[in-house]
């Protein structure tokens, strides 16, 4: 039993490491396929041929491809992803400084999406073919169809321009100092510092981007939860629980929701991965200082090192999220263990 479980976990880990190696290889291949001459780009347009040759030598671009790959992997192993051509800083430093903002945003969006999806899906299933069902299903399909960068702009128009309830963007007001860094996430840090007004301000900044980013997850999770709940409601053990005289709420929480959440776990994992793409767009609109905005800026500035580094980092994050979900699934569903 335990051996089987370990075998399953080992297989998942092996598959994930295969994918990670593949990702490293693909990003390397992409970075060597660049149409222009990276050495010339790096040296600048006015550099003499000698200077370009020197840069090429310095960057190791004159070595055989296999040697270049070795150098690339060796550098990666040391956490070296090259210099950003725009900021002239190591890309890794840039990423580390922008990462907490993205983590805070994605976590907030995940919480909102999971809560909304589970509640709406369950509610819709309990009131099948009635108003709650129709509205939940309508919201679900909207969440999957509306372009998030557009929705972000609309939200700004409504809640900033028209109503004036929420700020336009950024993590803080321009003249506010961030709380002392403990976790790097502003909201927990402000709460740890006991600064409630600051926490409120942070929350107001976080609200719109997090809601927009959470919508695809909320939509898909609503659908999945609804379908799974309908299926579970028809099961014999639910009838049995009813016959035993258990209260509606107890049946719903202990028997229905626990079993109906399983397919949702897959959706959550998949959508957390998609949020990585979504963050690039949403952060751009809300001027959110995270890695997504950094990636978008790198693309606009044609900063190849930063683009490749971001591809590598975001893809690895995606693989690791999916691995975590796979393992969570094994943990949640006893049937997979036997």
């Amino acid at each position, binding site marked *: 039993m335990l051996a089987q479980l370990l075998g399953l976990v080992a297989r998942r880990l092996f598959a994930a490491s295969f*994918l990670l190696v593949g990702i490293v290889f693909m990003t390397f291949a992409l970075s060597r396929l660049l149409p222009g001459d990276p050495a010339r780009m790096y040296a600048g347009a006015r550099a003499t041929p000698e200077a370009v040759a020197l840069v090429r030598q310095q960057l190791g671009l004159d070595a055989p491809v296999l040697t270049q790959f070795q150098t690339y992997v060796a550098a990666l192993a040391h956490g070296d992803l090259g210099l950003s051509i725009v900021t002239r800083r190591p890309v890794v430093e840039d990423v580390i400084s922008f990462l907490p903002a993205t983590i805070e945003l994605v976590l907030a969006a995940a919480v909102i999406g999971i809560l909304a999806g589970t509640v709406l899906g369950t509610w819709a299933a309990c009131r099948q073919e009635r108003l709650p069902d129709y509205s939940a299903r309508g919201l679900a399909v909207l969440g999957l169809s509306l372009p998030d960068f557009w929705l972000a702009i609309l939200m700004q128009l409504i809640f900033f321009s028209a109503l004036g309830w929420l700020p336009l963007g950024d993590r803080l007001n321009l003249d506010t100092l961030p709380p002392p860094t403990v976790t790097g996430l502003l909201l927990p840090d402000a709460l740890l510092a006991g600064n409630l007004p600051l926490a409120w301000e942070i929350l107001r900044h976080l609200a719109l981007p997090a809601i927009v980013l959470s919508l695809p997850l909320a939509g898909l999770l609503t659908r999945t939860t609804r379908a799974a709940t309908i299926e579970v409601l028809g099961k014999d053990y639910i009838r049995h629980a009813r016959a035993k005289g258990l209260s509606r709420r107890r049946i719903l929480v202990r028997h229905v929701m626990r079993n109906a959440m399983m397919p949702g776990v897959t959706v959550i994992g998949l959508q957390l991965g998609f949020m990585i793409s979504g963050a690039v767009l949403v952060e*751009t609109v809300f001027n959110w200082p995270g890695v997504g905005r950094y990636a978008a800026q790198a693309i606009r500035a044609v900063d190849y090192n930063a683009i490749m580094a971001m591809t590598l980092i975001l893809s690895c994050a995606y693989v690791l999220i999916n691995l975590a979900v796979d393992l969570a699934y094994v943990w949640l569903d006893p049937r997979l263990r036997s």
Partner: protein
Amino acid sequence: MSFPAVELAQPQNSRALAMLRLVGVPGLIALVLLACIAIGGLWRLTGLVPTPYDPVALDLSSRLLPPSGLHPFGTDSLGRDVLSRVVAGAWFSLMTSLAVIAIAATIGTLTGAVAGLLGGLADEVLMRITDLFLAFPALVLAAAISATFGGGLATTALALAAVFWPWYARIARARILGLKNLDFVTAAITLGASRRYLLFVTLPPLLAPTILVQMTMDVAFVTLSLSSLSFLGLGVQSPLPEWGGMIYEALPSQPRAWWLAAFPGGAIAMTALAFNLLGDRLRDRLDPDSKSRGV
């Protein structure tokens, strides 16, 4: 997912009516979008101006006008008519998406079908390659590929096709594995059908519905992805109109000139919504397995 279909006063047994009831409102929206593609294509390919204004003509005397009778969707910061640009933009946004789907579906279905039919080592190798492509977050990989080759519409379309084909490979392979051992396939093999005959004659009719449903749904997904990439500055280059690119150009004048982002984004949303709903309906109709699941 199914909204109540359009109720028709007198149900008749005509094919057209049955079809209309199947596609409903989403189908009608899709028709309008097709008309927009045609108008945009006419403009792009012949140089005629079938839209109220020339989509790229500058008019600096009427910059940033809010929606009015003259300009129902307003004008942008260079005085171009937003309605004309949204309509003509259908050519770039939707035709590109359709092309992406056609390429991705062809490559993916062939790969998956071959892998499923051959089995063994070929299957293993093809599917590991497929997995590798699926290991990347779609938009990030497409952006990286497109940026590597310098952006532009054709490059971005190919990058999207490179991201979307693995899904078709998976679906096709799964379907083929299910079909492979059915009696009629065995019968075909007994009668001397070659693998190529199976691949191109025997199996396609059974593979087609699944692939078609996926293609319909992907119109929504690919249109969203394409406009996202345009929004990042890849894709169509200014001054040509493309919905995602228009929203990107609108950013500096937000939130004052709301109409600049609202209308092109609305077009993207309508497209995605219509094709998502259409895909659901087609799936219920063509793929009986999923009918009762209600997902």
